[in-house]
């Protein structure tokens, strides 16, 4: 990173592309357009796609690029307000009640003042002092010096009631706490939502967002990503790996390997000091690449060797003509 990082919002699509690339995130132009629009229009960005295609990574990269803190909310079934937005600190509230009792016992109180102190206590108990802020509330806290990047990860894992709650946050960047009132962000955070599409997200959520489907990268971009993410890899091996993975994605597997698996696999191969791909080393490392037993069984033996032959043959042809 340069000594004085430029933390302003990007000024164009090309600027977005190059600044993401400077942080080793190689986006395609469509994604860069969406990111640029999301920043410019202050809209949440909804990213859908296969696992391991860099959806979560874009939020991290954006946070670094703009010098903002990253607040991540991992979704899961049953995620509720207490886990996502805020919770009252019951222990401290309880203590406060006991303290109030102790002090009121000491004073000789009349009926009127007893009622007044009760009201005061009720007000006091549900004030900001006793509020535990979770990710969503942190993200829109007016006290934030800079608006953060809010990553709502794997929204498809949460259930529908949670989506309904998100609507207020996404549309107005505010949360209403019944006991306290409405908390509204002075400057809207940058919101990235991701989904692996294990279920359909409700239209009402999508309507408030810009939408982008993150595809597997093409060979050229994948090679670029690989060389940036795994420095020190030989160009021959990198080209072979990418060609092999691209071939693998054309086969009907239960779970296709994403770019994350490509990187993992490359690291594994480098650990094993492999200089080129050969059937044996592919055999031994399939578990890094494929995560379903059915897929592994399918690729074991002749199938992987066949793909590898194809890759070699194509490389040879390309080499002789080029």
């Amino acid at each position, binding site marked *: 990173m340069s000594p004085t990082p430029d933390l302003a919002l990007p000024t*164009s*699509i090309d600027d977005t592309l190059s600044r993401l690339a400077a942080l080793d995130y190689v986006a395609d*132009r*469509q994604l860069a*357009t*969406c990111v*640029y*629009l999301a920043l*410019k*229009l202050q*809209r949440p960005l*909804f990213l*859908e796609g296969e696992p391991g295609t860099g959806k979560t990574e874009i939020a991290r990269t954006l946070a670094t690029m703009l010098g903002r803190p990253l607040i991540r909310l991992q979704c899961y*079934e*049953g995620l*509720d307000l207490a886990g996502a937005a805020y919770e*009252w600190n*019951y222990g401290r*509230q*309880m203590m406060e*009640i*006991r303290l*109030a*009792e102790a002090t*009121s016992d000491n004073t000789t109180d009349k009926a009127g003042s*007893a009622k007044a*102190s*009760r009201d005061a*206590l*009720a007000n006091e*108990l*549900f004030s900001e002092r006793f509020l535990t802020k979770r990710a969503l509330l942190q993200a829109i806290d007016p006290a934030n010096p800079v608006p953060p990047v809010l990553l709502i990860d794997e929204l498809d894992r949460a*259930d529908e*009631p949670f989506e309904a709650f998100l609507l207020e946050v996404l549309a107005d960047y505010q949360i209403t706490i019944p*006991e306290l009132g409405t908390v509204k962000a002075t400057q809207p955070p940058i919101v990235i939502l991701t989904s692996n*599409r*294990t*279920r*359909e997200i409700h*239209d009402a959520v*999508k*309507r408030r*967002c*810009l*939408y*982008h*489907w993150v595809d597997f990268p093409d060979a050229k971009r994948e090679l670029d990503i690989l060389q940036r993410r795994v420095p020190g890899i030989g160009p021959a091996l990198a080209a072979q790996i990418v060609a092999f993975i691209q071939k693998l994605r054309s086969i*009907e597997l*239960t779970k296709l390997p994403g770019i994350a698996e490509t990187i993992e696999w490359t690291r594994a191969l480098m650990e094993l000091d492999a200089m080129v791909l050969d059937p044996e080393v592919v055999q031994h490392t399939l578990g890094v690449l494929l995560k379903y037993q*059915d897929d592994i069984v399918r690729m074991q033996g002749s199938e992987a060797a066949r793909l590898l032959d194809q890759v070699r043959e194509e490389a040879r042809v390309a080499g002789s003509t080029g």
Partner: protein
Amino acid sequence: MLFSKNSPGRLAENVMHFARVLRSAGMPVGSDRVHTALAALQVAGLESKRDFHAVLSACLIDRIEHRELFDQAFVLFWRDPDLMGRMRALLLPKVNVKEGAQPPPPENRRLGDALFPHQPNRKPDEPEQEQIEVNAELTWNDREVLRQADFDTMTADEWREAQRLLSQLKLVFEPLPTRRTRRATRPGRADWRATLSAMARHGGELWDTRWRAPRIQSAPLLVLADISGSMSRYSRMLLHFAHALGHADAKVESFVFGTRLTRTTRLLKSRDPDIAVAQVVRSVADWSGGTRITTSLHDFNQHWARRVLTGRSTVLLISDGLEHGDTRQLAFEMERLHKRCRRLVWLNPLLRFDRFEPRAAGIQAMLPHCDRFLPAHNLQSLADLVDVLSAPDTGRRRHH
């Protein structure tokens, strides 16, 4: 450059027209999306056609299924940005394009209809046929007979009456606890928030613990119906059944398959069961044709299971299981399906024969991978099915 920046009025008009085309092709593009798109175009997207495409797709699409339709519409619509030319195209049955470039026929039928609504070869929608209500009350005895009657051999009147009885079934569904909670009166989990606010109201003097308990929801249901020739009537009744369930409080997904798989969830949403089932029948090309169970199950497992099945789902598979060919593959797909859901109930009308034995290779391949194997050929069997579905699962429970 596609448009000059000094004529934003026309651009807005064009984008609106484009949105209208998308809408009539079946994409839900609201006017707020058009607004967003116009706002977005103010900041980017006018430099090149590619960026223009990127901006519009970011703002107007909200699911991957629509991307192809969008791309086709984009190419067709913005090929010739001249408004008058396109207005002509919209009004005339034939497109006039400059200099030879013959437009490819619109690949998508809906899109074609949307872009060129006045083409003569387009058939008007057939009016829905109203079913005549039959009010003839049957005696108890008749009903008993009807309950046992086979769907396949029913007369039209009996069929209608059977449907009516079906809609009267009391549909209770297997209750499953969720991870969400609701207020409760009985001790369980303490509701600290309610407890403390109650205490605060009384100045901390009164300790009145409030409680919460897990919220209960009925298990989601998925119907996979074989609609090949021999199965067609049973499947039809099961679709009626699924429709009734969907309008009780269960979440129902439905698919039908013959030679290929079709998702019919949306079609079954229609309130009237006859219209809903008729819609399904009309939309499926191979109703009462042949069947390819293995490929259909494979298609489901590969493309849909991850999206529509949860670990809580009950799957109702209705099929006779008479698959020829490689049953090893069939067993594999059944196992995959079984592992993805909570309960797999196989309904097989062949069970109506008292002496039925599962000898066929296809049935033998599928049988080990289902939790229940039940008949579904008459009302009585469907009523029994409701009992099975509503009972808390006492069978084996999978651990993930």
